[in-house]
């Protein structure tokens, strides 16, 4: 079953959005940094779930939702999904 994340070779996606090449900020918004930190603690430090389970959760996003979400939005959905599915946060 083809998953939306598996996009190597997909056509029609247009030019690469180069943005501000001089922008060296690690994160574009504070919430992105917080999602990053949360994932690092939950996965890397606490080992509550694996990075594979986290990626799997992201990949199961409906295609339209996946494409409409920014990178760290996908991470947020991934975290919510895995925490909910594993019963760690049942209403995440």
């Amino acid at each position, binding site marked *: *079953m*083809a*998953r939306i994340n*598996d996009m*190597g*070779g997909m056509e029609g996606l247009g030019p690469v959005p180069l943005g501000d090449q001089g922008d060296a900020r690690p994160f574009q918004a504070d919430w992105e940094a917080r999602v990053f930190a949360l994932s690092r603690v939950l996965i890397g430090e606490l080992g509550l779930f*694996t990075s*594979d*389970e986290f*990626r*799997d959760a992201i*990949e199961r996003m409906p295609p339209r939702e996946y494409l409409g979400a920014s990178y760290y939005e996908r991470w947020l959905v991934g975290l919510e999904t895995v925490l909910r599915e594993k019963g760690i946060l049942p209403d995440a």
Partner: protein
Amino acid sequence: MPEPAARPGGRFAPGDRVRVAAVDPDHHTRMPRYARGRAGTVERVLPACPLPDDRARGVPQPRVEPVYTVRFAAGDLWGAGTHTVTVDLWESYLESEGS
């Protein structure tokens, strides 16, 4: 989670021709669609790691397999292009292409 020891001595070595399995899994995998069924050459053997397909599904003892950096010619992937693409692929994603 304890993991079984890696299978000693992987199947493939640098220089071997391999073909990516022509499969269509319905689970998480790290085999890109564009490489399915394509033949390439092993460029490097990487340390054995647990199979993400198993880990994502919570398999208690995920298979631990060598990973191979496999180089493909653009022409073989897309029918066009002069570049090469290398992909890192777990052993069970690959079959021998023969000599």
